[in-house]
């Protein structure tokens, strides 16, 4: 690649650098031994090892799902590394974190130094398989909030982890969830005690660095009665020619009157313009509104990954509970996204809102897939769904696949869908006012996504807007 080509490629994906740091890796491939090794590495209790093995044995018996609108060569699960971590002992405080890692996060725009950090946002930084730093822990501890790597939570708060881990996404839920349950290495754990409004935004920043390594993080967030929390995750990875696997599980539990807002800005490496490389992102995210009047709100901005397969969902068990899903999914070049949500209504007067904005450009394929299921117990349930697709160019695809099942005649379900193209006259109008074609596309796309972007925490909305424009660079003209 010539120097200028490199420059252009990097401008498009500015997080594509690698960090040169001594790593500890387990041997390639997956076996019971590897599962045991991961568990032993983390000094896990016996019950968790058993839980992992149960998941692994189940995984061996099931096949990769094939119902989604994506295509990829078969993944050789024996060719991957399942554990990679910076070789040094886990740091006990921020001062001990390897300067090379601090620099990495600095470059990513996530300073881990608390003085330099974004005010009001606590960060857990996960690098390949382990958490390398968590900021503002003392401030949070004062409010009774637990925010730590999940491996630490297993040791320090076993009763909570044992009670809730796998309670929303069981090990047998699906192929990738079973895989994750067997080999997950780190992720974030959050517990907000009764009556506490978390004083800061919580965020986890996931970084895949090592080659041929899968990242399998596990996030568990519990908001006890009357608790409120807003959580954001960000993800990036280096530009590599081979595809890398990311199979995460996120579980949210909201008890009575609790509110969880979970926002994602997903910017894994999408592969190059010819579809070479990029992350395979197979993720299971689900929240349970267990208590009355509880609320779970998912907001996602998905711009990265070669393949995105994820359906952040809500199980609305508590009466009057509320589920929301706001999504922007952008695909360009050869990216494929099959994403949406499931809203399962069990409790009475439960309501759900789905706003999905899909943007396809280049030769990409973008599918919204969503299920609204109203069970017989869910009297007075309501759902409103709006799916809008925007096409840029003539070689991309947009698909909308809604499933609606209602077993209660008092339920109300509304579905609206539109598909549009960026019109030539809109582009010309903007350009005649001095905007470049790419700025014009950025403006129009951001306008299209406004209803979703306004749901993001303010600190991240601006970042997300920029990300949208960058992701679509080179998509017109």
């Amino acid at each position, binding site marked *: 690649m010539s120097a200028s080509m490199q420059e252009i490629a990097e401008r498009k994906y500015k997080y594509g650098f690698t960090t040169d740091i001594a790593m500890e890796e387990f041997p390639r491939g997956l076996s019971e031994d590897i599962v045991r090794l991961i568990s032993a590495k983390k000094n896990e209790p016996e019950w968790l090892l058993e839980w992992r093995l149960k998941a692994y044995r189940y995984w061996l018996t099931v096949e990769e799902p094939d119902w989604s609108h994506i295509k990829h060569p078969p993944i050789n699960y024996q060719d991957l590394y399942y554990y990679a971590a910076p070789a040094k002992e886990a740091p006990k405080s921020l001062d001990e974190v390897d300067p090379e890692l601090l620099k990495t996060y600095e470059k990513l725009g996530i300073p881990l130094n608390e003085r330099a950090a974004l005010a009001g946002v606590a960060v857990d930084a996960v690098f390949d398989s382990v958490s390398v730093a968590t900021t503002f822990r003392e401030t949070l501890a004062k409010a009774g909030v637990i925010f730590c790597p999940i491996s630490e939570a297993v040791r320090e708060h076993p009763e909570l982890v044992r009670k809730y881990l796998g309670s929303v996404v069981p090990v047998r839920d699906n192929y990738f969830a079973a895989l994750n349950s067997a080999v997950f290495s780190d992720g974030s754990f959050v517990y907000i005690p009764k009556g506490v409004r978390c004083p800061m935004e919580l965020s986890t920043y996931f970084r895949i660095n090592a080659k041929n390594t899968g990242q399998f993080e596990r996030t568990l967030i519990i908001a006890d009665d009357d608790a409120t929390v807003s959580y954001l995750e960000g993800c990036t990875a280096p530009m590599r020619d081979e595809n890398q696997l990311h199979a995460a599980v996120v579980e949210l539990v909201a008890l009575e009157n609790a509110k969880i807002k979970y926002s994602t800005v997903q910017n894994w490496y999408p592969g190059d313009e010819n579809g070479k490389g990029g992350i395979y992102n197979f993720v299971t995210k689900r929240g349970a509104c267990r208590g009355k009047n509880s609320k779970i709100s998912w907001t996602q901005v998905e711009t990265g990954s070669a393949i995105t397969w994820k359906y952040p969902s809500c199980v609305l068990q508590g009466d009057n509970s509320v589920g929301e899903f706001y999504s922007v999914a952008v695909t360009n070049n050869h990216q494929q996204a099959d994403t949406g949500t499931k809203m399962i209504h069990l409790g009475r007067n439960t309501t759900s809102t789905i706003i999905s904005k899909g943007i396809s450009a280049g030769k990409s394929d973008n599918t919204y897939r969503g299920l609204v299921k109203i069970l017989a117990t869910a009297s007075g349930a309501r759902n409103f769904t709006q799916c809008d697709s925007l096409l840029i160019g003539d070689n991309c695809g947009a698909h909308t696949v809604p499933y609606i099942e209602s077993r209660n005649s008092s339920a109300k379900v509304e579905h609206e869908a539109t598909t549009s193209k960026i019109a030539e006259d809109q582009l*010309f109008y903007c*350009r005649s*006012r*001095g905007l470049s074609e790419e700025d014009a596309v950025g403006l129009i796309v951001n306008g299209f*996504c406004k209803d979703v972007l306004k749901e993001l925490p303010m600190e991240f909305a601006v970042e997300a807007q920029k990300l949208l424009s960058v992701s679509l660079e080179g998509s017109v003209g």
Partner: protein
Amino acid sequence: MLEIKNLHARIGEKEILKGVNLVVPDGQVHAIMGPNGAGKSTLSYVLSGREGYEVTEGEVVYHGQNILEMEPEDRAAAGIFLAFQYPVELPGVGNANFLRTAVNAVRRKRGEPELDAVAFLKQARAAIKSLHMKEDFLKRNVNVGFSGGEKKRNEMLQMALLKPGLAILDETDSGLDIDALKIVAEGVNALRNEKFSALVITHYQRLLDHIVPDVVHVLSGGRIVRSGPAALALELEARGYAGLEAA
């Protein structure tokens, strides 16, 4: 000065402009009138660089630059502004955001410092006041749900903020009531000075009561067939376009 020399342009196979010659010195307002299908809108789109119009012959020079080779956004930066006959809606795009993005894009290209939000709002509010518009214009989405008159006023607001050297008004008066017409005229007249010129394209004479042109041209069959003083517009109004080709 704008100089159009022997301009031929076509859409697909169909030749629309068949050798337009026109000179608009700085400081002057020229009106272009003509029957439907004469090529009036084509001329405005060719001048502003819309895709789909192929120039087969001739040149257009503005302030010494051959603008036909320039991208639409570079023409905007060079000072050319097209007020659209049918302004386009941009759902979800706030008017203030759009205007500021446009103003700063143009300022960047002109080598001027960008305006911060405060400085921009100050200018925008002043322009809104002078155009007798409501301030909520800035908060609404670009042209979405605007009435015909509001859309045209929004064009004038953009023009006031972009401060063009050459404004092309493409039948800006179509569909306007008399009050809106006056506001459009005020918008243009407020910019009139020795450095500003305008091409006012219109089907009817009534706009020219309010924007009094220095010269009136008649475009018919893809050519300028007649040019004259402001009074020519009145004559056309009285006698119609019929028979002009022969004249």
